C-alpha cells in the first residue's frame, strides 16, 4: 500500500473510519450473498465486493447533507454513507419497512434523510440527476456537494457526456466518481472504451480529472479530498476515475467466463480489505482486538437487520395505487 503524494495525510481516526465503512460494506455484502444462497432472499444482486475503498474514503469526508446518486451496484455506496441496515434489509426483502416500502428493491434503494437520493438501474443516469442536486445546493447557498457514482461502462453513454459538460458550463459542485472495475457486464474496459484512462475525458469539458488507485485508501482519500474542496469552494466539478475490481462478477450467479482464471486470481489477490486491515495493525493505528471488536459489532448489526427485514410484513396491494402521484389513485 503506497501513500499518495498529495496532502493531506489522513489522521488515524479517519483511517479507522474508512476501515469501519469498508468492513461494514463487506460484512453486509457477505450476508446478502449468504441469504440469497439460503433462499431467504430473492432478488437480482450486483455485489460490489472489492470496491469498498472508493465510497468509504469519500464518505469519510462527507457530511450527512451531502448527496449521492448511485446505481444498481451501489449498496456499498449507501452503506458507506451510513445507511441504516434495518430498512435496507427490509427493502431488499420487499417488505413494508423497507426504505421504499418494498416497491423499489435492491436496485432502487433511496434514503434522502442521509442524502442517498437516487439509485438508478439505467447505465449513466445517475450523472444528470446529480447535477440538479448540485445546482440545488448552490441555490440554497449551502456548501453541499453532490456525488454521482457510476461504472466504467457508463462513461461511454450519452448521459455521461451531457452531464459532465453541463456541470462544467454551470461550474456545479458535483463529483463524478467512476468506479472502474475493468468490466461492463462481460465487456472488458478496452473493448468498450476508446481511451486508456477515462479521466482523460475531463479535458474535453475543461474540468479537473484524475485516475486513482481505487483500492488504495490513501490515494482515494487524497483525490476525494481535493475534489470535495474544489466543489465546496465553488471551483466546479471533478471527474475521478477509481480503478478497482468486482470480485463477484456482474450479477450474482455470474460464472466470469469472459476472463481467465489467472487474471481473476491476480485481481482477487489485490483484495483491499485484508491489506488495509494489516496495514492499520502494522502501523499501530489499531490493534487486532480493536478491529475484531469492530467487526463483531458490525456483524451483530447485520444479523439484527436481517432478522428485522425478513420479519417485516409485505406491503398490501393498495400500495399499487399509492405513491404514483402525491394523491392516491382512485380504486
Amino acid at each position, binding site marked *: 500500500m503506497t501513500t499518495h503524494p498529495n496532502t493531506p495525510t489522513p489522521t488515524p481516526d479517519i483511517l479507522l473510519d474508512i476501515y469501519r465503512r469498508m468492513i461494514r460494506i463487506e460484512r453486509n455484502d457477505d450476508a446478502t450473498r449468504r441469504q440469497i444462497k439460503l433462499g431467504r432472499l430473492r432478488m437480482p444482486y450486483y455485489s460490489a465486493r472489492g470496491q469498498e475503498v472508493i465510497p468509504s474514503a469519500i464518505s469519510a469526508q462527507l457530511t450527512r447533507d451531502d*448527496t449521492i*446518486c448511485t446505481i444498481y451496484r451501489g449498496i456499498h455506496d449507501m452503506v458507506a454513507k451510513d445507511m441504516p441496515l434495518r430498512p435496507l434489509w427490509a427493502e431488499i426483502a420487499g417488505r413494508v419497512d*423497507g*426504505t*421504499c*416500502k*418494498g*416497491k*423499489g428493491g435492491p436496485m*432502487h434503494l*433511496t*434514503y*434522502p434523510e442521509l442524502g442517498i*437520493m*437516487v439509485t*438508478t438501474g*439505467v447505465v449513466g*443516469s445517475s*450523472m*444528470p*440527476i*446529480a*447535477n*440538479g*442536486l*448540485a*445546482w*440545488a*445546493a*448552490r*441555490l*440554497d447557498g449551502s456548501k453541499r456537494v*453532490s456525488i454521482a457514482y457510476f461504472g466504467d461502462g457508463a462513461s461511454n453513454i*450519452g*448521459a455521461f*457526456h*451531457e*452531464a459532465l*459538460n*453541463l456541470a462544467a*458550463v*454551470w461550474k456545479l459542485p458535483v463529483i463524478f466518481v467512476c468506479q472502474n472495475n475493468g468490466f461492463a457486464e462481460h465487456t472488458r474496459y478496452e473493448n468498450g472504451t476508446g481511451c486508456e484512462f477515462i479521466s482523460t475525458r475531463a479535458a474535453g469539458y475543461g474540468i479537473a480529472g484524475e485516475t486513482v488507485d481505487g483500492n488504495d485508501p490513501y490515494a482515494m482519500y487524497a483525490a476525494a479530498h481535493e475534489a470535495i474542496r474544489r466543489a465546496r469552494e465553488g471551483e466546479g466539478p471533478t471527474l475521478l476515475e477509481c480503478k478497482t475490481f468486482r470480485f463477484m462478477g456482474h450479477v450474482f450467479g455470474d460464472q466470469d467466463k469472459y476472463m481467465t482464471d489467472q487474471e481473476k486470481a491476480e485481481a482477487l489477490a489485490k483484495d483491499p480489505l485484508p491489506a488495509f486491515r494489516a496495514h492499520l495493525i502494522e502501523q499501530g493505528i489499531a490493534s487486532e482486538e480493536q478491529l475484531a471488536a469492530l467487526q463483531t459489532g458490525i456483524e451483530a448489526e447485520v444479523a439484527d437487520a436481517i432478522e428485522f427485514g425478513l420479519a417485516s410484513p409485505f406491503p398490501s396491494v393498495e400500495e399499487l395505487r*399509492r*405513491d*404514483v*402521484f*402525491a394523491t392516491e389513485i382512485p380504486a
Partner: protein
Amino acid sequence: MSSGVIETITMTGQQAVSAALFEAMEKDSKVLVFGEDVADREGGGVMGTTRGLSTKFGDERVKSTPIAEQAIIGAAIGAALGGYKPVAEIMLMNFTTVAMDMIVNHAAKLRFMSGGQSAVPITIRTLTGAGFQTAGQHADHLEAWFCHTAGIKVVCPSNPADYKGLLLSCIADPDPCIIIETGKTLFAPGEVPVDQGPIPLGKARIDRAGTDVTLISYSSMVLVCQAAAATLEGLGISSEIIDLRTVSPWDRGAVLASVRKTGRAVVVHEAVRSFGPGAEIAATIQEELFGALKAPVRRLGAPYSAVPFTKPLEDAWLVQPADVVAAVQSIMK
C-alpha cells in the same frame, strides 16, 4: 360560471405563458426556469417566451443550457429532489426522444420506486404541431407516450387563459407534468381574466354546450372542432365540445356525462390516429356507456405517416374542420 363582469386582457398564449412564469417565479423563490436559449443573454428563448425572466430573477434561477436534453431533464429532477420547482423547456416535442429515459424511467417513477420518499415536481414545457412545414422531425404530437407512462401528467392548453391557468397548476403540482404548447394556439390572441389563477389539472372544460354529439378534443384541435361545430350548427346539428385540458389523467366524469346526454362521440386529436390518445377515450366510452350510445364512437387523428413537408400533403395530413363535419354526419344518420 359566476355572474358579474370578469375583467380580462387580450393576450396571446405566449404572453400568457410568460405571465404565468413571471407570476410563479415571483410568488415562489423555489421556481426555476431553464432550457436552451431561455436566458436574456440568449434572447430570452428562440420564440421570446421567457424574455425578461433572467433579467428579473437572476442568472442562477433562469439558466440557458447546452443542447443536451438528458442533462436538462436530469438537472430538473435533481433540483426537484433538492426542493426546487424547476420548469424545464424542451424546445420541441420531438426532442423529448433524447430525454425519454430521464422523463419516463426517472421523473415519472421516482416517487413510486422510492415508496413515496422522492417527489419530482417538475414541469416540462414543450412545443409542437404541424402546419408550419417543419416536416417529419419537428411537429409530432407524442402525448400518447406520456399518457401511457404512469406518474406524469399530460397537459394541453388550447387558449391563452388556459395556458396561464394550467401552467400555474403544473408548476404548483407536486408531481411531474408535461405541458404541450402548439404553434397554432400559442400565437392566437384571446381573453385572459386579469386575475387568472391556477386551473385545476384533470378537469375538462365545456367549450360549447350542445345536444346531438360530443366532440372531445384538446390543444389546437379544439379550434378545428369549433369551426366544425359552427358548420354543423348550420346543418341543424348541435355539438357539445369538451376541451380535455389534461389528457392524462383525463376527466372521465365530464366526458361520460356529456356522451350519456348526446349519445354520440367523436374524439379529435392531431396525433396519429393509430394507437393515439383517442383510442383510450373511445375504448372507455364504449365500455362505460354500452347500450346508451346511438352510434359508434368515432376517432379522428393523423394518418399513419410522418408529418410531410409539402403544404398540400401537410394539409391533408392534419384533421380539418370538414373531416370533423363528415365524421359527425356519418353517425347522425
